[in-house]
């Protein structure tokens, strides 16, 4: 049986450097399919979909709200051609009712141990409209190595430099952060993978640079310490979300190859300043993630925050405006107050204001968001700052003998397209 797996494209935010990373969800899902299923994968962010490709059954994997409308259009086209289409993934779960209107079937929840039944149902012509496993998480030990063999590697390469591979070591989250739906999607319990399973998968990844995409590694100190300890011999270099602010954790993380972390910067306190410094003390870079438009922020607060960022030696910064995704407290609060005015999911890209902020107009928040990006990268562009981080990681790789020179055959290619040498910035799609 030929299964066509598709990851829909989405419109990238204007003015920002685009790096297309190999998507994680589809290949984690593909690892759950029975061996008899022949899978072909297309990431529409880096290549066009061939609607004529020979296939029996189509799966559409969606992570972002900004993918859903495109995903529905793709499904409509395949269904018009007589193919059956199933949806899965995070944003399928967040937008399930609407997605159902464009699907022969939707899969809600985690796929491990469940796809044999789904495929058998399809083979018998008895595909169910909904496979609902919400709140019924499978044993985390069932999570096996992702099907990274499905990637067309040359498409995730920028001027000869291979993009990082994505990897996850846990699921679920014990925190209920205001703008986040992870606890709804993956459960409110932190579910770490057995260390040996995580390490086994890491060993299979033919890439020394990784992005550990777990929502937060800072949920169990002992597990974090055990994981980092076992990662040291692998000599990988990696990006992750927050790491616990404890000397023994930071020390082991650095030894295990922590390259840089995403750290939320939500105020101008000494705590944040020192937190960033402590990462740097251990040789770990910091990309600040700054959420704008919360109810406790005035225009002055945002302007002060931007000045503060320039003073704390962040390696990179990523600004977003609050997007009230379904199943978050932000959504509940704004919905109760009737403040959400835009329900077009294409606009839920965290760069466009879709609600009435408390202390300013939507237009003013939009201006401040754009001002934040321009101010932070005024003296040094995003690419220049990124290059500095790359230099640091290359030096560390040279020290431990894991450095791989860029692939010269792909030096004139960026994500599968010819590089326009006349352009000063990468500008794709």
């Amino acid at each position, binding site marked *: 049986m030929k299964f066509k797996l598709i990851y829909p494209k989405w419109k990238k935010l204007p003015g920002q450097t685009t790096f297309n990373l190999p998507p994680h969800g589809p290949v984690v899902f593909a690892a759950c399919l029975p061996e008899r299923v022949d899978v072909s994968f297309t990431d529409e962010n880096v290549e066009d979909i061939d609607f004529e490709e020979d296939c029996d059954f189509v799966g559409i994997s969606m992570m972002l709200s900004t993918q859903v409308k495109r995903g529905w259009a793709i499904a409509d086209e395949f269904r018009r051609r007589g193919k059956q289409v199933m949806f899965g993934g995070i944003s399928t779960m967040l937008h399930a009712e609407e997605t159902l209107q464009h699907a022969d079937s939707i899969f809600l929840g985690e796929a491990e141990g469940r796809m044999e039944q789904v495929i058998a149902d399809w083979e018998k012509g008895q595909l169910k409209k909904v496979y609902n496993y919400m709140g019924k998480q499978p044993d985390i030990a069932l999570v096996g190595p992702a099907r990274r063999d499905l990637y067309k590697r040359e498409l995730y390469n920028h001027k000869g430099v291979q993009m990082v591979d994505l990897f996850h070591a846990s699921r679920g989250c014990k925190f209920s952060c*205001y703008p986040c739906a992870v606890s709804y999607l993956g459960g409110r319990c932190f579910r770490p993978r057995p260390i040996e399973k995580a390490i086994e998968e890491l060993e299979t990844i033919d890439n020394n640079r990784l992005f550990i995409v777990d929502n937060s590694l800072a949920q169990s100190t002992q597990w974090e310490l055990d994981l980092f300890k076992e990662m040291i011999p692998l000599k990988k270099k990696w990006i992750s979300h927050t790491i616990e602010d404890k000397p023994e954790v930071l020390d082991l993380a650095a030894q295990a190859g922590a390259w840089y972390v995403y750290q939320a910067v939500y105020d101008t306190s000494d705590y944040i300043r020192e937190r960033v410094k402590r990462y740097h003390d251990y040789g770990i870079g910091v990309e600040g993630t700054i959420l704008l438009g919360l*109810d406790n922020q005035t225009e002055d607060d945002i302007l002060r925050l931007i000045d503060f960022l320039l003073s704390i030696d962040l390696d990179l910064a990523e600004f977003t405006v609050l997007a009230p995704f379904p*199943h978050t*407290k932000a959504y509940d609060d704004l*919905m*109760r107050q009737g403040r959400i005015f835009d329900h077009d999911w294409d606009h839920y890209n965290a760069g466009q204001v879709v609600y009435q902020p408390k202390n300013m107009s939507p237009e003013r928040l939009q201006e401040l968001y754009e001002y934040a990006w321009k101010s932070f990268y005024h003296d040094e562009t995003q690419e220049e700052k990124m290059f500095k981080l790359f230099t640091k990681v290359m030096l560390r790789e040279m020290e431990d003998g894991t450095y791989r020179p860029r692939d010269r055959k792909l030096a004139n290619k960026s994500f599968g397209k010819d590089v326009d040498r006349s352009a000063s910035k990468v500008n794709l799609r």
Partner: protein
Amino acid sequence: MFDMKVNDKYFDEIFDFAGQWEMPSKCGLKIVKRGDKTVVLATELYQDNPGSSITYAGGSLIKQICEAKKLDLRNIIYVECNPDTNSKLSFYDEEMFRVDFEVENEMPTNLKYTQLTKEEIESIL
């Protein structure tokens, strides 16, 4: 990071309900008789609620409570409580909303939220 344990001052029992897509969900519940009306107070439990929030569950939760407790949908005052969680973040301060609704085919619809002051909460409870 913070522990979002909810104080039980606004509920007498934990009520199990079916959330979105039948997800097993929980909320705090207090039912108080006030004259000829019944006040139903549902409290969000955050980390102790494994499924849908009480706000997202909305009318479905109201219907489930009324069915389980044999209350007349048309004769209740329904209040949603988003309790204080001892967070430094103001988004998790206590907020209460009176939820008014219409009833169509025995299902609450067209929910309207009105935030209550401390005095209003005291007078209702």
